């Protein structure tokens, strides 16, 4: 069953092309998970997240500053290589400058019939944020209507909301299994499911995920040390596999491929659906670029660690990812006080698996010390 998610992930471009051929629909690439996919689904467009390939490249040097993160370069490189040539449009919701530069460069060098910059407020804690974002999403809806040549009714929007919320609910059911003593789902499998959330039509994803959930059998095998993984964008499956092969299981994460993407729902109960959507994005578990003036993330992270009984946490940061870099010292401190040891690793387009393995093994030995001596 997990094979379907793995297949989708490794053939992500083929999936989108096939969907396009089959339906004649439009595909919209987006750069950040603050993009309100509810509206895109309402328009029957396929939203897919633009991701990197974890392969070294030499195309982005003229376009992206040297001290910007490897993820934004990797994403742009995919566009410049023509991997996303099937996209009908690209968009971004403001999060950080690095990924925005990938977007603006894409807009400039890879022509599509639709581009959109959604000024998602960074100060989501401001009392004006909700009103501001509501009107911005309304503007986005208008632009999208113009592009597809069709007006979107409230019913369309509500359909989009329901589809997204259903997917979120199923993801929560999946994560509930991960609270078990020996979780029947590995971190690698979870990541496959989480990545494909961002590239497959939600109707299909929901269908396969629902079936997957029905077939999960409880696990008696010892799955090793329970770990949390958190930090910058992370879709590095070989890394997670390596960690789990060292005798651990990733039980919970805080990544934008993972819980940050689906943790809260719109829960529409009436009124203005656009405002309900805006509220969801204002209140979702924040990316550190939006976690101020108050630092609300840390309490959320500690709660996740506690609820999923994580014995240790791996903190990863994409090289030069300033928002996460700023948060990590405070997270380490808070976790230390909560008696959850942390291991910090800096990620690049490719990770040095051998060297990281030694660190992960040493970290696990540190966590399990009393078994050794």
């Amino acid at each position, binding site marked *: 069953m997990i094979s379907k998610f793995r297949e989708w992930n490794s053939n992500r471009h083929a999936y989108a092309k096939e969907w396009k051929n089959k339906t004649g629909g439009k595909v919209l690439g987006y750069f950040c998970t603050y993009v309100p996919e509810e509206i895109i689904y309402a328009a029957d467009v396929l939203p897919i997240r633009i991701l990197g390939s974890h392969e070294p490249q030499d195309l982005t040097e003229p376009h992206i500053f040297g001290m910007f993160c490897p993820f934004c370069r990797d994403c742009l490189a995919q566009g410049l290589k023509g991997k996303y040539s099937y996209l009908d449009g690209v968009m971004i919701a403001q999060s950080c400058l690095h990924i925005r530069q990938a977007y603006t460069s894409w807009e400039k060098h890879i022509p599509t019939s639709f581009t959109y910059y959604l000024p998602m407020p960074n100060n989501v804690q401001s009392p004006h944020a909700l009103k501001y974002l509501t009107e911005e999403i309304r503007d986005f809806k208008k632009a999208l209507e113009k592009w597809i040549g069709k007006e979107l009714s409230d019913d369309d929007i509500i359909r989009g909301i329901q589809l997204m919320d259903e997917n979120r609910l199923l993801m929560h059911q999946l994560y509930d299994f991960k609270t078990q003593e020996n979780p029947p789902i590995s971190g690698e499998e979870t990541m496959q499911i989480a990545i494909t959330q961002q590239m497959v039509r939600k109707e299909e994803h929901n269908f396969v995920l629902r079936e997957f959930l029905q077939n999960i059998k409880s696990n008696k095998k010892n799955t090793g040390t329970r770990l949390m993984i958190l930090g910058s964008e992370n879709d590095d499956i070989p890394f997670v596999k390596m960690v789990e092969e060292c005798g651990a299981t990733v039980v919970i994460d805080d990544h934008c491929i993972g819980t940050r993407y689906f943790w809260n729902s719109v829960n529409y109960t009436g009124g203005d659906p656009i405002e309900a959507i805006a509220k969801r994005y204002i209140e979702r578990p924040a990316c550190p670029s939006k976690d101020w003036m108050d630092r609300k993330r840390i309490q959320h992270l500690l709660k996740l660690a506690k609820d999923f009984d994580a014995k240790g946490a791996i903190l990863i940061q994409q090289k030069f990812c300033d928002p996460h870099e700023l948060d990590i010292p405070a997270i380490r401190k808070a976790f230390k006080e909560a008696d959850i040891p942390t291991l910090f690793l800096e990620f690049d387009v490719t990770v040095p698996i*051998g060297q990281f393995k*030694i660190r992960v093994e040493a970290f696990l030995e540190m966590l399990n010390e009393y078994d050794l001596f």
Partner: protein
Amino acid sequence: MISAGIDVGAKNIKIILLRNNEVIAREKILSGFEAKENVVSLYKKILEENGISQNEVSSITSTGSGRKEVDFANMSVTDVTAATKGVTTIYPSVRTVIDVGAEEGRGIRCDNNGKVIDFSINEKCAAGSGAFIEAMSRALEIPIEDFGPMSLQSEKEIPMNAQCAVFAESEVVSLLHAKTDKKDIAKAICDAIAARISSMVRKVGFEKDIAVIGGVAHNVGFLRSINSNLEAEVIVPDYPEYIAAYGAALITE
């Protein structure tokens, strides 16, 4: 009871044999391309030379970056655990272990039970390690054994950036062109490595006593630089390159 500790490092394989936790033999050999074969032949050699049969060895523990090559080991631990066990067994007062080998530098902090609290390992580059000193001694055209003693003859402080072994080498070449004395360059290199290792140790937060182990602990110039950098008097055990193997031999099932 005889136990063996086998440390398969990036450059050398070290084996130690213990009888009732006392060292009875130690041997090393270059890891080479065929580490697996070299481990077996060194292990056979050390047993033979000490008149011990394989059946007499009740536990074999491997460690080091190539520890998985030892397929006949009963168990396997990382360098961090083995090094800490080895050092704290000899010096229970040690709270910080600095382990500088051929390819890796490590800073480890432990508590009074020898339990690892935190550790830090050098990033993707080998600038703060033994391979770097070897490269620099080649650039200076001096034998590696003379490197430390030569640097002790200098009191000069020449700033050098050892963030990258390749750039550091070009700095050395520039200094040679500027007719800088070799002993001053040797000291600058020791200072640079010590600065790099110290910054790593500061990351985990260090507490005294501090022990330095690994092959680079033989370099007296490096030891002087690290003492001055950390304002400490580091402890160097005898045979510092064998400490991880010793620690591994002490860890039995």
